């Protein structure tokens, strides 16, 4: 008999992440 395991419901990626540009400019700082 097959046993079915319940999978957790996937949580959608936030819209702002889905449309975030893959390439952006980088800035790097050390704040003391």
């Amino acid at each position, binding site marked *: 008999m097959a046993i079915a395991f319940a999978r957790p419901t996937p*949580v*959608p*990626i*936030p*819209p*702002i*992440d889905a449309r*975030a*540009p893959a390439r*952006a*400019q*980088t*800035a*790097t*700082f*050390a*704040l*003391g």
Partner: protein
Amino acid sequence: MPGVVRTRVGYAGGSKPRPTYRALGDHTETTQIEFDPERLAYEDLLAVFWDSHTPTRPPWSRQYASIIFYHDEEQRRLAEESKLKVELRLERRLYTDIVPASQFYRAEDYHQKYYLRGVPGVMHDFERIYPDAREFTDSTAAARANGYVGGYGTLDDLSAEEEALGLSPEALAELESIVRQVGGHPRGCG
């Protein structure tokens, strides 16, 4: 800040390979920001940089030095110009180095999104969305939520993008409650 795409903290500027928090070597604690130049100018990031610390006193140690790591000639020029302006305005010498960007090493996961980690209800949502810690660190939504908890942004800013953050109503309510208290009063970078 609108236009911030990703943030991460780490170590840079030194020569020790693969530094860690407990074995930092000659590196400095560093914040790296990816931004959309069509929505946010490098000059605006420089303004936040100067407002977020006190570069008029010598650093306690290499770990806590004040440094701008420039990624191209334009960033170097803007950094030098802004440093000079701040020095003239304050009539003080600034202990801030402006150096070319070198290898950046990500800090350990538990250092990322420092402010957000103090808000369990919101973190619970992000842990469900991003079980992978690296994906959580690279999330724009997490970067923006972390910024709100750190005092960057107002209720109006949050209202304008709350649906885009992908959080539950409960987590959003918790975030709004925090912004009501700290909004517009930045605590410094986290």
